């Protein structure tokens, strides 16, 4: 599902954010990507959603050569990915339903699809009763659940969760990771980026560690 072949990224200011990184995440896998600030986690995500292109090497997502993707075709890649942001990135002027329905609208899905699918994913994340609430009326955990529902609504092949627990308390963080694991059990590939090693140790599983732009280890933690 995700493949990096000898990928390096050098920013215009001369900083080497990733140095010759290779990794593969297979279809249906759940992988944690861990590392301290400046390790290259954000750069890795930016590569996968084609916010930036690699300086050298190849990046493949769902079989697409991301580095060769033209700017006006990036939406095709992003529609394959469900993205959960650390700061939720909900649209304040839209209610919960419309925030989630926003993705199928962007991807030209039918009204019928939205009417059926949006309540379904909101039920999955336990927010069906908050369907008409505005984001400001929700707690941090609830907002992250809405963001997760939004990432799930178009049934993507890959979910990238960028520090999804960064703004949440430990209990809510656990709930969010459990939700991501439940999604993964249904067959969706999940890549969760975090700097919180304690969650990784608590849940275990495949863990890719980055440090100073290099892959430190890639192993299964039990």
């Amino acid at each position, binding site marked *: 599902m995700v493949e990096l072949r000898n990928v390096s990224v050098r920013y215009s200011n001369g900083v080497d954010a990733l140095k010759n990184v290779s990794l593969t995440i297979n279809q249906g896998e759940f992988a944690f990507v861990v590392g301290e600030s400046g390790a290259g986690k954000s750069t890795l995500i930016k590569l996968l959603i084609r916010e930036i292109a690699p300086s050298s090497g190849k990046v493949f997502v769902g079989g697409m050569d991301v580095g060769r993707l033209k700017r006006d075709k990036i939406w095709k890649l*992003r529609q394959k990915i469900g993205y959960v942001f650390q700061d939720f*990135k909900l*649209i304040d002027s839209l209610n919960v339903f419309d925030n989630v329905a926003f993705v199928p609208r962007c*991807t030209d899905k039918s009204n019928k699809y939205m009417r059926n699918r949006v309540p379904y994913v909101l039920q999955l994340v336990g927010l069906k009763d908050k369907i008409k609430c505005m984001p400001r009326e929700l707690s941090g955990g609830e907002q992250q659940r809405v963001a997760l529902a939004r990432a799930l609504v178009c049934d993507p092949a890959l979910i990238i969760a960028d520090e999804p627990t960064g703004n949440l308390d430990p209990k809510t963080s656990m709930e969010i990771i459990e939700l991501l694991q439940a999604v993964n059990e249904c067959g969706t590939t999940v890549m969760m980026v975090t700097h919180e090693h304690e969650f990784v140790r608590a849940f275990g599983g495949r863990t890719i560690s980055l440090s100073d732009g290099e892959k430190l280890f890639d192993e299964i933690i039990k």
Partner: protein
Amino acid sequence: MRISGFTYLMKQGAKNIGSNRVMSLASFCILLVSVMLIGFTYLVLINVNAVIGDVEDKNEVIVFLKDGLLQTRIEVIGQEISAVGNVAKVTFYSKDEGFESMKSRIPNADELFDYIGESPLPDSFRVTVADITKISPTLMAITRIDGVDTVSAPNEFIGVLTDLRNVFTIVSSVVMAALLAVCIIVVSNTARASVSIRQREITIMKLVGAKNSFIRVPFFVEGTLIGLFAGAVSAVITYLVYESLSEMVINSQMTLLTALGVGGLIPAASIAFKFTAVTVLGSALVSGIVTAVSTRKYLKV
């Protein structure tokens, strides 16, 4: 795109106007003033052109014939003048008609005319040219006709009128183009400010896989609607002001215009439909396109 998707984008565009009231109002006011200024400049241009055209139309070229020509030859000359390109109308004036006309224009000179007795004027044709700017080659062609003695034409006056029309057309076109450029720049800046407020929203849309067109269409709709309202209000104001001005011109019997035989401004009703259509559609299109283009910078996510 599905109809439901299209309807959604239209609704979003309309909704955006309400959500960004201050910026929408700023765009509306700027467009209103700019479109009104362009409209007034255009109205001045077409009226000045019409006035000059009226004056030009009243200019006749008098073609004097040589003495002693037979009536059949005179008729042939009339046909030859008509056949010259750029000639709109040819009217024959006999020497007696010319003399009678002179008598009527000079009162209290009966004794003088009695002394003169027979008409001293030659037979003549009064020729109206179609395009006054091409009068010189027309006159040359008429002069070459056998039997034509001299041709009398107000060449200098016509030259001044033509130059005046050309200069005015250039000046007003430049003014309108400058106003349009100012309008585009100001609307573009206002739109950019309005778009930048929604930068976060645009970034989210891009990250979840929205196409650029999906993001741009509501902005285009928003800009078009603001332009449509501004164009409509501007057309109404311009129409009302123009109509009042028309009445003022007619009532004041402006001496210069009446001396030149010009009745007044072009009637408002005769240009209302075309003017309103161009103003409203032009304003809507410029505003819509400029607003949509202003999103470009923010789509590079």
